[in-house]
């Protein structure tokens, strides 16, 4: 009796999970086909915005720590952005001596006492340095307290209405900030935040960090590229697709795995700044901004379909850390919704969006574990796990191919040999890379 019940339950769980995964894959394919293959949009005319005194000034916050050799390049590229008025606020925590010396020398930094309003509580600021080379640059050295605290410090110090947080490893072209700010410039009164996409690329194919020209479509074979780099790129493109499709249909959603966000400073302050206890402070704030209607700042969060730039892929361990952080952040978001359930549509929609992202990985795990367990128990033949494995592997590859189709219509998309390699490697992602990621997460604990 119990065995029959267990068999029935297992069959139901496997069928339901597979059904769910098929629906997700079908939605991806349908979304990519309906929106993919579309002609590239002619670039917006940014000249007028770039030269206008009505273009809203932006404070760019760059949190850095440890040994950051690219920081000088990043500052150079940020100050070289095609944007009429901006300031760059580097918030340094535990920066290595070598990086400090380089930064000080390259930018002729000199300590200065600048009195500013500490609107958000942060760890103590040790000193503030201004640049003799470019007065738009300020470097704040503060006691280490994590990325969120550094962002809060930057927000406190920022002079302008919008703040943009940029990691030093990101490469971009000169119009990147105008592209990001475009929705906010169209309607500054209503836009609380704008998110954009940063693509993970193998270091050989990526632009030099911070120094930017759009590499355009990659048609030449960049040579042998480690599979892990390709899988990180595929994951990055898939997350962009998920974000884009969800946002298009629901007018709200989650940002991609990597991105750059412009925040309206007053909205950040109203919600108490970036949470220092959140797994991913920026994702947490984006979720709070979208779901705090009525008891928070009024306005909306916008997602641009533009690509801000790209960042080099990391090690498998690094990718595992990022994936784990994302998962924890999503769980935190769900817990927040549970603690304070709201009745508004956005909150319900966001619960579904977050749930779908979490459930997809869970469903894959459930199917894999249950089908093997069923085979071990003799409830199914050993052919079933192999077939399931085939289904999951190619199901995953279908979603990746859909993402590549959608990505193809936007600048900087993989092309030629690059694209072929990504398509061919896609089916092996579930079989090879996912176990490696899980292993790296387990070992890293």
């Amino acid at each position, binding site marked *: 009796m119990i065995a029959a019940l267990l068999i029935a339950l297992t069959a139901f769980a496997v069928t339901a999970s597979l059904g769910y995964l098929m629906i997700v894959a079908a939605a991806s394919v349908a979304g990519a086909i309906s929106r993919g293959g579309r002609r590239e949009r002619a670039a917006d005319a940014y000249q007028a915005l770039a030269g206008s005194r009505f273009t809203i000034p932006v404070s760019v916050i760059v949190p850095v720590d440890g040994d950051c050799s690219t920081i000088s390049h990043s500052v150079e590229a940020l100050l070289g952005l095609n944007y009429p008025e901006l300031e760059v606020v580097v918030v340094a925590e535990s920066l290595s001596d070598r990086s400090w010396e380089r930064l000080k020398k390259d930018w002729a930094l000199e300590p200065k006492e600048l009195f500013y309003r500490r609107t958000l509580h942060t760890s103590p600021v040790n000193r503030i340095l201004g640049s003799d080379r470019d007065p738009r640059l300020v470097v704040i050295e503060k006691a280490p307290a994590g990325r969120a605290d550094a962002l809060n410090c930057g927000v406190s110090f920022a002079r302008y209405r919008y703040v943009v947080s940029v990691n030093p490893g990101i490469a971009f072209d000169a119009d990147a900030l105008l592209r990001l700010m475009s929705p906010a410039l*169209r309607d500054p009164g209503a836009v609380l935040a704008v998110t954009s996409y940063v693509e993970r690329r193998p270091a050989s194919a990526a632009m030099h960090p911070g120094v930017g020209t759009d590499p355009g479509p990659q048609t030449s074979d960049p040579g042998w590229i480690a599979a892990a780099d390709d899988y990180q790129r595929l994951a990055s493109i898939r997350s962009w697709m998920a974000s884009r499709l969800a946002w298009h249909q629901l007018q709200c959603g989650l940002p991609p795995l990597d991105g750059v966000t412009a925040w309206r400073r007053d909205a950040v302050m109203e919600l108490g700044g970036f949470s220092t206890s959140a797994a991913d402070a920026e994702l947490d704030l984006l979720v709070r901004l979208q779901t705090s209607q009525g008891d928070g700042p009024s306005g909306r969060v916008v997602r641009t379909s533009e690509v801000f730039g790209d960042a080099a892929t990391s090690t498998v361990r690094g990718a595992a850390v990022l994936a784990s952080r994302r998962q924890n952040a999503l769980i935190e978001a769900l817990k927040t919704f549970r603690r304070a359930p709201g009745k508004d549509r956005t909150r319900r929609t966001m619960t579904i969006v977050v749930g779908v992202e979490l459930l997809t990985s869970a469903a894959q795990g459930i199917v894999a574990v249950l089908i093997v367990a069923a085979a071990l128990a003799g409830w*199914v033949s050993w052919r079933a796990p192999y077939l399931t494995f085939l289904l999951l592997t190619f199901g995953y590859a279908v979603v990746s191919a859909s993402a590549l189709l959608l990505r193809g219509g936007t600048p900087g998309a993989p092309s030629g040999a690059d694209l072929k390699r990504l*398509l061919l490697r896609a089916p092996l992602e579930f079989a090879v890379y996912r176990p490696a990621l899980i292993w790296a997460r387990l070992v890293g604990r």
Partner: protein
Amino acid sequence: MNLEPIILTGGVVAVLLWAGLAAYVLHIDRRRTAARSVVAAILDTLSAADVRSVSTAERLTRVVPLLDRISRDMILHTAADGSTPRDTVDVLTTHLVERWGIYTLVREASFHRKSRDIWRRTASMKVLFHLNHPQVVDILSRAVESSSAEVASVGLTLLGTSSDERATGILIDALKQRKQSPSRIAVHLEHSPLRPAGAYRPLLRDADPLVRFWGATLLAEYPEFDWVESELALLVTDVDARVRKAAIQSLGRVGDEVAASAAMQLLRDPAAFVRAHAARALGELERSDTAPAVAELLGDHDWWVRTAAKHALEAMGSEIWPVLMRCLDHPDEFVRNGAAEVFQNLGILDSLIVMEAASDDPSHTKIDLLRRIAAAGGLRLTDSLIERSGTAAPRIRNLLTSMGLEQVGAA
């Protein structure tokens, strides 16, 4: 448990779907790459020195075989691309008109049914604008009212670069009726080649404060007209604080005596952002004689006003140091901090301390001034000073110690 048929079917479907999608993605990529290489060949051919010197009709003849190899969409896309050279656009637009007729372009530029047709509409608008088509202003006028932000944006951009006087009228009308974000419209009016100062004048008397605000803001670009300063000065008593702010901000850029007197008046405005802009205006006008009034704002209850006062005082230059000195003993800590920061940013602190540290017989007056600045700025101000002074740091440290400021912590 017989799950195998479901899993097998699913697996086969997944494999076929992956193979089909992969082939489709590669096919699109190949088509796109081929089209791009043809476009590159067209651009190369048209930019060759011997081709550039001949007539448009002749140049078109040279590239027709290439143009026949790509779709109309690709030609339209290339013609509308801002990076395509102007003489190449001439050839491409001529081909578009000769081959598919001007009516097709007018129809595409006039409306779109689906979101995927937006790019075609905006591209056709650009091509018609390039051709200076007689209907283009009407088409752009309709575009400004479009619910699509992209269409409206392109409409505004083209109207902003138009030399047709109707374009300015449409933009001003759109601003008054708030058809799009006023700041976005103002960006394009700001760049209008017509420089329509006269068209902004009536805006200053509009019943809508937002229209008055933008009228005042846009006039900051016209210092050459005598009436601008006097008209703006009338708005410093406007009932709407935003209008007063815009008026004083523009006066700071275009004004002189009237502007300074208006700014002085607004330093006591009830709205903090108006006080802040009044202070900034005085800084921009470099009216150091108004420094005492601006320095009072260092103790304003609003932080932005204090910051604006600091920047304004810095803009007035080092000659205002006697005013700053008086602030160093102010009972309000914010005023003392602000004055010390301005002393530092003007370089007065550094030059004073370097001179006195180098001297065997430091002046008591200057030492007293240094002591007061250091006390007003706090520990980090002196720490920063020592770190900035490089090789002179030991002497400066000694001097600060002799002044009773020995607890400075910088190395």
